[in-house]
């Protein structure tokens, strides 16, 4: 039992490396928030393209559905490796091939891209469910007032759909946040990679425990917010 505590809860290891792991967690949070916001936007765009009306938009619908299906089917780790392994060699300007925007290293940006491409697809599916859940009468009322498709979407359908899907979007955000650890494989020192570095140096896993605790500190309140949102919506639903 002592060995167990020493391996996972060695306070000396934790305090010696606290700052280093915390810095890794800051990287994790930045990656999660940036990719999270971009996924929210990209997902909505995909969902709207998928809902574009009429025969003229059939190719657009087909492309967006294919994209969503493909991205949902490929492991995120592979997407990260594919992007970081080929983007540097594509015939593009250097600032795109090896992006170092805002003082962040290129693995950070490859991570943002991979997470956004993948989670945008997940979130598009969530938005779609929300769009479908808005009663058709709302569309008809909007159209009968002379709104065109995009006005009806923008002012009537999307605002209602987004409200309905805030809880599942938050769930996806929690999942995204945890998946940032995969970006560690391309040498971004996010919190898990930081913990592994310490582990390799000290032959002790306590820095990883610290990483787990840091995650929990953020994800548990988020999960509670999701639950509160869901029960609030249920009350509304019961009231009619």
């Amino acid at each position, binding site marked *: 039992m002592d060995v167990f505590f020493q391996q996972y809860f060695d306070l000396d290891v934790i305090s010696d490396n606290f700052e280093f792991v915390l810095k890794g967690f800051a990287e994790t949070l930045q990656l999660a928030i940036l990719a999270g916001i971009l996924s929210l936007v990209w997902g909505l765009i995909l969902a709207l393209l998928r809902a574009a009306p009429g025969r003229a938009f059939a190719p657009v619908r087909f492309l967006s559905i294919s994209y969503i299906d493909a991205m949902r089917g490929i492991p995120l780790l592979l997407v990260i490796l594919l992007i970081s392994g080929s983007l540097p060699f594509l015939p593009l300007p250097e600032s795109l091939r090896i992006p170092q925007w805002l003082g962040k290293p290129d693995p950070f940006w490859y991570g943002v891209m991979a997470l956004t491409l993948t989670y945008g697809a997940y979130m598009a599916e969530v938005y779609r469910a929300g769009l479908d859940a808005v009663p058709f009468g*709302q569309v008809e*009322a909007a159209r009968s*007032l*002379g*709104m*065109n498709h995009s*006005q009806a979407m923008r002012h*009537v359908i999307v605002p209602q759909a987004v*409200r309905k899907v805030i809880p599942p979007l938050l769930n996806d955000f929690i999942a995204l946040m945890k998946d940032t650890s995969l970006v560690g494989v391309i040498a971004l020192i996010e919190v898990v990679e930081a913990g592994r570095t310490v582990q390799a140096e000290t032959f002790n896993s306590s820095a990883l425990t610290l990483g787990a605790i840091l995650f929990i500190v953020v994800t548990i309140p988020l999960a509670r917010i999701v639950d509160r949102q869901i029960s609030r919506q249920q009350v509304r639903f019961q009231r009619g």
Partner: protein
Amino acid sequence: MVRVEGLHKRFGKLEVLRGIDLDVRKGEVVCVIGPSGSGKSTLLRCVNLLEPPEEGRILLEGEEITGAGKGKSDHVRRRIGMVFQQFNLFAHKNAIENVSLAQVRVLGRSADEADAKSRALLERVGLSDKVEEYPERLSGGQQQRVAIARALAMDPHVMLFDEVTSALDPELVKEVLDVMRELADEGMTMIVVTHEMGFAREVADRVVFMDEGVVVEQGPPSDVLSNPREERTSRFLGLVLER
């Protein structure tokens, strides 16, 4: 004002409208009655270009509106107000926002102008004390009156009503019919699908009886409702008046 010529509408194999002709003059109130499934809603939805017909044409103020391009359909709909059985108020907007939204976004009125117009309309339908309420906190009758105000806000040239009191509790029907009666008195051109025979008798200039996608007979309410010529009409009236 509104002229429907030889209108046919199919959903797959089902032919819902089978050659409808209808002529509504300016300021006229036409009540459309008929059994459920006879195509009344579909007719209104075709007039409002929510459904494209397969055959026939529809003219609004002398101009053909069927087969209009997309942008043009949106334009046409501004001149046609429509009120639905299920109210369809925008659930995320309060009463006055419901009435103002399209004024600002479609007609390009300023927020102030739309606001003033919306308040006046809500007062006219007797809801000046509910301006800020959300639909979920309004009774069915109140929601329906907001929906009428919302349609009127676009200054439509003709108003379509599709069984607007059918989803209401009996005690709330009158407040909605009163608003419609006033509108008719002011000279609004109206096509009203309804099961309220009292309203039709009192307010309609003409009653149209539809069955199985055709107009079976039409004429002044005193003829169609009291002395129908057609067997099908009297059978329908017998069933309705029994209740």
